[in-house]
């Protein structure tokens, strides 16, 4: 199994600012994913981050709003840019060692935007 450390665990931010969320995996993984879980809703995939290439974004999510970095096989960041109250959500990172392997999840970042 893999252990994912995600930080910060929670933050309260002002409108118009940006927050960078970090995920560190204790072993090398092929793929990392970023999800959003809005209040009372399910998890929605934001993007897939592969090392050495640009992230692939899902419909409704753009790089300018959610820039992602994946500098190596154990680390990724997601930035929520120019935040508004609608961005208040839980953001989760997950990792997968290889195709058809199960996903491991970080503990999540609870973001509140005032």
């Amino acid at each position, binding site marked *: 199994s893999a252990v994912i450390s995600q930080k910060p665990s929670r933050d309260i931010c002002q409108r118009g600012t940006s927050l960078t969320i970090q995920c560190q995996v204790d072993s090398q993984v092929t793929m990392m994913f970023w999800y959003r879980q809005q209040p009372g809703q399910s998890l929605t995939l934001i993007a897939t981050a592969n090392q050495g290439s640009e992230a692939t974004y899902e419909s409704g999510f753009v790089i300018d709003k959610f820039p992602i970095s994946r500098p190596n096989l154990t680390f990724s960041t997601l930035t929520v840019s120019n935040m508004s109250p609608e961005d208040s959500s839980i953001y989760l990172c997950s990792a997968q060692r290889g*195709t058809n392997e*199960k996903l491991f*999840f970080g503990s999540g970042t609870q973001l509140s935007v005032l």
Partner: protein
Amino acid sequence: AQRVTQPEKLLSVFKGAPVELKCNYSYSGSPELFWYVQYSRQRLQLLLRHISRESIKGFTADLNKGETSFHLKKPFAQEEDSAMYYCALMFSGGYNKLIFGAGTRLAVHP
């Protein structure tokens, strides 16, 4: 389009009663289905996957392609089963993607 439907937001049962959490999917290809669970104050974790055909914590789930369902069952619920349960579908779109249902909260009462 790929979709996972969990029709019940909340399922409330008494300890010892049978449990069935419903999950239906929509996918034109060969599906790979999972159940994830999130206990209070813990992170989301894999409960079981259909290709393993295993029983975890007394839970089983059978893929029914005819009914496009992957319902989660347990014959005798325990209080410690109380949690949020998510059904998820993995499909390949150049890379593996996992999409989740809305989730069902299972509450097991003493």
